[in-house]
């Protein structure tokens, strides 16, 4: 391995080249480390999507990560590739700007794709500082056809801009015609005294992944493998080879090998270091401003007469001290500013609709609901003192990263708010966080099946029978599908199974995170490449939420919550049909009729407690107050279920109901205080922290680190390290090892997914409010649910049947009376809207209603077809409407 240690691979693609690479960044790092590399560059096509995880993985493996990109450049009507490597911070900034420029204008105003990313050569030349440039591969590089005048001019321009930082890339891909090209490039380099550099244009980390690479190429070209052989590489020589093997391949050109080491030596930019991100600056002292605002609000939220006043004051001072210590005042004020912006947006969108205006524009969720500062600044609607919500999960002494404040908004407000934030902070300084759509079972079956030219019917049947998630289990699913299971040994079906397993989890394309936004005090395109989102007017950054968190970016979570939209619609519909204004913040939280329905598991359509599993638990738990609902919402989650908490909790609760003096068994007396509220079992995520603190003496920071080790990028090594610390702490408190082990197992089992209590409290309140609306305004509630489809657990037919069972008359679509959406014709009758007609879109429905208002009712389907410009299918669909 050590024969040629100076060779560094400088042209390497990961799966984030999207359909032109098969390796995850950490797989590349592991393979490079195993082959004895000292450094490795990652140069994906026109993006830096994997640059940060790659840099972190390389750092952990003791490998130097070189940040780079294979950029598509346009010149004189031709496009070609250049490999650009960042030598310094300035070089990285230029790289980000160039990639952003390449993606600018790739989408039309309606969000559809207009062209592939590419940047003009002149722009590259202007941003050459701090970058090393390699001339690209023989097939698509900058020097293809070097004998023609355009290519010569291009070479001279690159040489002038990059000077000694330009190197001619030589590859030996073992393809016919490549050898003469290599000799030609080498001759050119000698003539112009340019350095040559050997690369292998890596697309595979293992030879055996070659078929997958071919399949991805076929998918990219929308062709079957048989039909796209000219686009395939033809062999598997583009694998990551050892430095010794590369040295052997270039034994007559040792300077090309040595140059890789020299370039790697120059490219010392480390992406894991601080990138200099700062949130938007605020004038004045943010700590004073926040403290002043909160103290001013304290009197209105906790009057002097309030029993919680004393505790609230103490809690506020504690939180303000923590915020000051971690310099987070600006963070809170920024969220407050965004909430104010949302208030403006809500006022505009709701217009004169007085009923909706009594509702707040959004509400908090997640661990931030436990913060009194959030409560006082309007970022949360739950009183953390009265609700006895803990703070440790959100803020503590040893905070490792910026906490998250998640805000829920109705869908319409959220959509407009995102646009408004882009305007407020500037399109260059605000962007949505990226997310990577990865291959799952159905997509893998469909795309790989097409590439393998499997019969369309077979693909459709297998995809339909698949659970849609784990592409690894396609083989098992195949054996269950009639007509296919008999042919399970067919070579192409076997290939399909193998390739689906390999492609599982690989990224397919970049999309946008459901709600994360980042804002910055300087253009974001200097920190991370940006590109237009599929939705017009939005920009996304090329990093996902984990990478953004690793880079220290402040992420604002603006989440769309269907039920919040439905509740708003419901309030609005009640006002429209009855004139009554419902203020949800004032509905009684102890309505016996509502709890009676909840206890009877009559909860179809109710937020969070409508699933069959929830219904089953409701019957046994019999919630009688909001606190019970908080537990109920958190109970039926993977965390408590896998942690074995559900049945013990229910049994103890039933036992307590029969006899309140029944003692609760705890694993250890030290856990009594932490788990008293949940009868000795872990139900809330924050109890993981309190249990670790109580039993093993963890500090809040250590406990939070334990939770993070379990939930994100869970690694065996990290969990084992946590266990050692946990066992040691427990031993110091005289906890027997078997007890410590059992509790730790419960904690680990809990890690799947669970709610913090604050989050459960926020959701429980919405669950109660939706149950209240369902009980007292069933028709309006049904209208709201139908308007906001798709949402919830049940299809519209089930919701309608449930409403009919509750004495709501559901009237069919009627060409004379129906509106665009479902609407209340009376407090107990709902008229379905045109949107409920299959095949009718919102535009079609609006067109029909507008025409009817303008020129009177339709006399027949023919009359409707004559008066409207509707496609035949939609006209045919109206045939089902009454009065036609």
């Amino acid at each position, binding site marked *: 391995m050590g024969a040629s240690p100076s060779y560094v691979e400088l042209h390497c693609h990961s799966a984030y080249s999207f359909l032109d690479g098969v390796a995850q960044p950490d797989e590349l790092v592991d393979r490079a480390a195993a082959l004895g590399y000292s450094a490795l560059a990652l140069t994906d096509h026109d993006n830096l999507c994997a640059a940060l995880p790659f840099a972190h993985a390389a750092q952990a493996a003791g490998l130097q990560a070189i940040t780079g990109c294979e950029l598509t450049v346009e010149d004189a009507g031709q496009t070609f590739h250049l490999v650009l490597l960042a030598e310094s911070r300035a070089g990285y900034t230029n790289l980000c700007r160039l990639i952003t420029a390449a993606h600018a204008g790739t989408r039309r105003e309606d969000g559809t794709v207009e062209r592939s990313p590419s940047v003009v050569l002149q722009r590259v030349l202007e941003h050459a500082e701090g970058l090393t440039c390699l001339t690209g591969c023989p097939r698509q590089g900058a020097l293809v056809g070097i004998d023609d005048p355009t290519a010569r001019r291009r070479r001279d321009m690159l040489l002038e801009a990059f000077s000694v930082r330009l190197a001619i890339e030589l590859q030996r891909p073992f393809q016919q015609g490549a050898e003469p090209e290599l000799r030609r490039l080498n001759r050119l380099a000698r003539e112009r005294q340019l350095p040559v550099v050997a690369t292998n244009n890596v697309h595979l980390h293992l030879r055996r992944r070659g078929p997958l690479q071919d399949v991805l190429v076929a998918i990219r070209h929308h062709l079957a493998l048989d039909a796209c052989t000219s686009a395939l590489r033809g062999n598997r020589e583009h694998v990551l080879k050892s430095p010794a093997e590369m040295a052997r391949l270039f034994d007559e050109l040792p300077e090309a090998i040595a140059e890789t080491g020299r370039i790697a030596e120059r490219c010392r930019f480390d992406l894991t270091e601080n990138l200099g991100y700062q949130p938007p600056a605020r004038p004045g002292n943010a700590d004073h401003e926040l403290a002043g605002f909160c103290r001013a609000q304290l009197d209105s939220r906790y009057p002097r007469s309030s029993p919680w006043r004393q505790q609230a004051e103490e809690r506020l001072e504690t939180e303000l001290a923590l915020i000051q210590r971690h310099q987070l005042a600006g963070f809170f004020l920024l969220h407050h500013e965004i909430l104010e912006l949302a208030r403006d947006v809500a006022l505009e969108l709701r217009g004169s609709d007085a009923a909706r205006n009594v509702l707040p524009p959004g509400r908090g969720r997640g661990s931030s609901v436990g913060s009194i500062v959030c409560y006082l600044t309007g970022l949360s609607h739950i009183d953390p003192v009265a609700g006895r919500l803990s703070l440790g999960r959100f803020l503590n002494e040893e905070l490792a990263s910026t906490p998250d404040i998640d805000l829920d908004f109705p869908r319409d407000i959220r959509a407009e708010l995102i646009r408004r934030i882009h305007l407020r902070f500037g399109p260059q300084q605000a962007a949505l966080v990226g997310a990577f759509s990865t291959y799952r079972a159905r997509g893998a079956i469909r795309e790989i099946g097409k590439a393998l030219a499997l*019969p369309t019917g077979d693909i459709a*049947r297998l995809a339909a029978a698949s659970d849609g998630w784990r592409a690894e289990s396609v083989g098992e699913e195949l054996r269950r599908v009639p*007509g296919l299971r008999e042919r399970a040994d067919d070579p192409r079906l076997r290939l399909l199974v193998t390739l689906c397993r390999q492609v599982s989890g690989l990224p397919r394309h970049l999309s946008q995170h459901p709600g994360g936004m980042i804002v910055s005090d300087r253009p974001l395109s200097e920190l991370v490449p940006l590109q237009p989102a599929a939705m017009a007017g939005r920009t996304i950054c090329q990093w996902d939420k984990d990478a953004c968190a690793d880079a220290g970016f402040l992420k604002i979570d603006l989440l769309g919550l269907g039920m919040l939209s439905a509740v708003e619609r419901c309030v609005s519909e009640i006002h429209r049909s009855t004139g009554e204004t419902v203020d949800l913040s004032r509905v009684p939280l102890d309505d016996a009729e509502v709890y009676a329905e909840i206890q009877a598991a009559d909860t179809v359509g109710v937020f969070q407690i409508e699933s*069959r*599993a929830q219904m089953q638990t409701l019957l046994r738990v019999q919630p009688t107050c909001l606190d019970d609902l908080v537990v109920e919402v958190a109970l039926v989650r993977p965390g408590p279920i896998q942690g074995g908490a559900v049945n013990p909790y229910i049994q103890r609760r039933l036992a307590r109901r029969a006899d309140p003096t029944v003692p609760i068994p705890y694993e250890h007396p030290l856990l009594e205080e932490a788990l008293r509220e949940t009868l000795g079992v872990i139900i809330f995520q924050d109890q993981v922290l309190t249990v670790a603190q109580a039993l093993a003496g963890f500090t809040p920071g250590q406990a939070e680190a334990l939770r993070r080790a379990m939930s994100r990028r869970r690694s065996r090594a990290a969990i084992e390290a946590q266990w050692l610390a946990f066992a040691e702490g427990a031993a110091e408190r005289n906890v027997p090892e078997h007890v410590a082990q059992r509790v730790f197992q419960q904690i680990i089992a809990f890690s799947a997914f669970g709610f913090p209590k604050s989050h459960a409290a926020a959701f429980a309140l919405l669950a109660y409010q939706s149950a209240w609306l369902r009980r007292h305004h069933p028709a309006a509630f049904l209208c709201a649910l139908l308007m906001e489809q798709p949402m919830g657990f049940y299809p519209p037919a089930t919701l309608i049947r449930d409403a009919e069972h509750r004495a709501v008359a559901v009237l069919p679509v009627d060409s004379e009376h129906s509106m665009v959406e479902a609407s209340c014709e009376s407090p107990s009758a709902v008229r379905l809207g045109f949107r409920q007609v299959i095949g009718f879109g919102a535009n079609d429905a609006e067109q029909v209603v507008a025409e009817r208002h303008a020129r009177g009712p339709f006399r027949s389907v023919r009359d409707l077809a004559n008066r409207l410009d509707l496609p035949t299918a939609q006209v045919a669909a109206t045939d089902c409407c009454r009065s036609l």
Partner: protein
Amino acid sequence: MQVTIVTATPVALACTWMAIHSAAICEALNLVGIDRLGGLASLKRLAVRDRFGPDGVRAWQMARGEDGGVITPREPPPLLRAELVPGEPIATDHALEQAVELLLKRLLNDPARGAAEPRLLRLQARLITGESWLCEAPLREPCGDQQRLLLALLPKARRLPAPAERIAISFAELAPGAQQLALLDPAGLEREQRLAGATAQVSLGPWHCRPTAHRHARSDQSSTRTALRAGCSMSGLLRGLASQAPERCRVTLDEHQYPSSVDGRVVISLREEWRVEEGWWSTPYRRRYLSVALADGQLQTIFEDRRNPGQWWRHGR
């Protein structure tokens, strides 16, 4: 027998109803102005017999309500129903799937079913809320395959709006078993595969014809297909290709595994090397190609079949 003549019923409808598949009778009656059942019934029997034969007489009898056949009551199909009362209400999708699978298995194994296969599945449930719930899954054709039935019923069963205390499945309609048709005609599939295999062998087989790399081989493939499509005779095509088929050759290698001689002729220079590894999805081949200059001044392209190491082939003569 009391005869009631429905004079307002059109003759064509009557004929259809009476299952007389003779459009000629209806047309002929219409031509003489008889377009109602009553008109047909009022004709004389002999006249009808002379003009329309036995079919006409049958139609005339039926129009008058005279059916000479013996009425055999339809035998109701056996009610196939299986019920499950679990210890704990069925709440999760997994439990639901298991319950449905179990009930289907019971029903399919019920000897009362005989050779009949269900055409309509009905799932009934008693919910914990005290209500009942029902869903039906009609099948396009009768089917006795448990997996198919599961695939048809489960998506609908998952709409169950509350945990079920009791669940039952019945075969609401049974029909004689139908032949399960494959999506593709197996014979056609086989023929297609054979043709694809033959084409691949012609262009890419070990006796492959062209002394070039994979890229040329691809053009051969497409030209072969074009030729086949254009109607060239296969034998003519094969003859043409075979004239350029590679031949086995003897190659001696030096210590670096490069040829030092080909069929006894000394290699004086190696011009290019390339590797081909393709066709893994149909006809896999792995080759190492070398273009060499021989001492007698000839240029020769040889390749090693890496699926059979040590076997060397020469293109052209």
